């Protein structure tokens, strides 16, 4: 059930360079059941900007009716969002889309959660839910550089956590796939830039349980405008399609053309 709610800001702070953690209070937390879902955010009333911004749900606390968004201050919309203060409200539509299938990893099995940059946030709620279920989690988190790293300790509290940076200023220098090759696991859950997802898909083409979360420019976010479609992998030039906003953003690797 999708609802539209003006959620009040519990807190907002910069947790890494240009990366903001925004905690909101809203009744719609009761509907947030799948890690990897997102909300569609109207950062300001009126026309500047007009459209909503999709942001992943990074954490849900149903008891307090609080949920967390973590985003990079990038263009105009996120800049406006980052200037909002406690006591103001944010217009939220959600929860939207289908998240990561936690049922695909059994208690006692091992899942590796692979994130890149602003693809890291939804993995936090996912990790929490997997751990609760008894799954062993490992995290491989890629960032540009040390200043961009966030939530490392939080992830560590759930399981072993490997950080890579492009420039080597923190953790391992290189890409997430370099680290993944050293690990063993039953399931891969991944979210990040398309290039990263492609590398994960290519590197684990024969692996049965690989899930990737996609990004695409959106209009409606609810499946009505056909802005966010991608081809299905079995018909890459045909008519069949999936919508990132409603069929995704999480797909099984090999299901859609990245």
């Amino acid at each position, binding site marked *: *059930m*999708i609802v*539209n709610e003006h959620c009040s800001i519990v807190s907002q702070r910069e947790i890494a360079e240009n990366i903001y953690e925004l905690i909101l209070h809203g009744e719609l937390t009761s509907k947030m059941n799948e890690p990897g879902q997102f909300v569609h955010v*109207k950062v300001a009333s009126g*026309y*500047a*900007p*007009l*459209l*909503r911004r999709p942001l992943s749900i990074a954490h849900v606390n149903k008891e307090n009716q609080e949920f967390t968004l973590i985003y990079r201050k990038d263009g105009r919309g996120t800049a406006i969002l980052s200037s909002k203060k406690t006591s103001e409200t944010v217009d939220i*539509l959600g929860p939207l889309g289908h998240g990561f299938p936690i049922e695909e990893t059994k208690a006692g099995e091992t899942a590796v959660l692979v994130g890149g940059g602003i693809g890291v946030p939804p993995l936090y709620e996912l990790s929490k839910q997997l751990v609760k279920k008894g799954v062993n989690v490992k995290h491989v988190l890629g960032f540009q550089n040390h200043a961009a790293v966030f939530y490392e300790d939080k992830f560590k509290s759930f399981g072993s956590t490997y950080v890579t940076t492009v420039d080597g200023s923190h953790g391992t220098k290189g890409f997430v796939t370099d680290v993944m090759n050293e690990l063993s696991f039953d399931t891969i859950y991944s979210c990040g830039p398309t290039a990263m997802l492609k590398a994960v898909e290519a590197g684990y083409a024969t692996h049965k349980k690989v899930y990737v979360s996609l990004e*695409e*420019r*959106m*209009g*409606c*976010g*609810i*499946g*009505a*405008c*056909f*802005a*966010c*479609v*991608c*081809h299905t992998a079995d018909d890459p030039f*045909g*008519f069949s*399609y999936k919508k990132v906003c*409603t069929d995704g953003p999480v797909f099984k690797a090999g299901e859609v053309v990245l």
Partner: protein
Amino acid sequence: MNRLETQLPGLNLKNPVMPASGCFGFGREFGGLYNLNDLGAIMIKATTVEPRFGNPTPRVAETAAGMLNAIGLQNPGIDGVMNNELPWLEQFDVPIIANVAGSTEEDYVEVAKRISTAANVQALELNISCPNVKTGGIAFGTIPEVAKSLTKKVKEVSVVPVYVKLSPNVTNIVEMAKAVEDGGADGLTMINTLLGMRLDLKTAKPILANKTGGLSGPAIKPVAIRMIHDVSQQVNIPIIGMGGIESAEDVIEFFYAGASAIAVGTANFVDPFVCPKIIKDLPELLDQLGFDHISECTGRSWN
């Protein structure tokens, strides 16, 4: 008395508010958000003979008080729409206006012929103005004689009234409107999107994979109002107005200009509950303005 009830050729509407084509899919998504029976009608997504995937992504880009889209008529084709979408919509007590598109006259005729027989399709909307398709489309929407001929052909085969959707990307909108009226159109819908483009600061290339796209949203409202104002004085068929509507006040402005019903497009993306909200707000606004019935507003700017 129902102060919003609206009679148009083929359409007996509870109220004159409907979602615009392409901004509501085939209704399923919004059906999960509110009761579709509340709507005056539904304009479904453009249907073509064959299924189409449409354009590559990115398909949308944002602009000041508006957006560009280049979806490219993605749809499951006439078979898919007839077999899977329209039957689902039959559960609702809401007239469907089927948006018909194509690359050739024959395409339009075939889709019109078949889709007009569907149980709940009570009117067609001839999309002669889609800016996002490379072949055909543009001449239908910009050359009066071509538009007239197409209207005639479609009228011959359609078993329901035919509305023609006008493109704003023309020098003389009145001339286009008169041509399709001459061709036998039962009504007009206007306006479709303005042709626009946005470039990416970093890459210097168009943000849309299709390069150009259709501009919609509040930014284009003054253009829509002007065109409806001009056209409504020159034709004798009703107009369903659209272009940037997001509130009951906007609806009244379109009626004043000359519309007899309206459609809401882009605003559905900003607030998916906007259509029922507008319908709820209208009676109170009519009270404030001193009208008994919304139809009293039509054409008030010029008569």
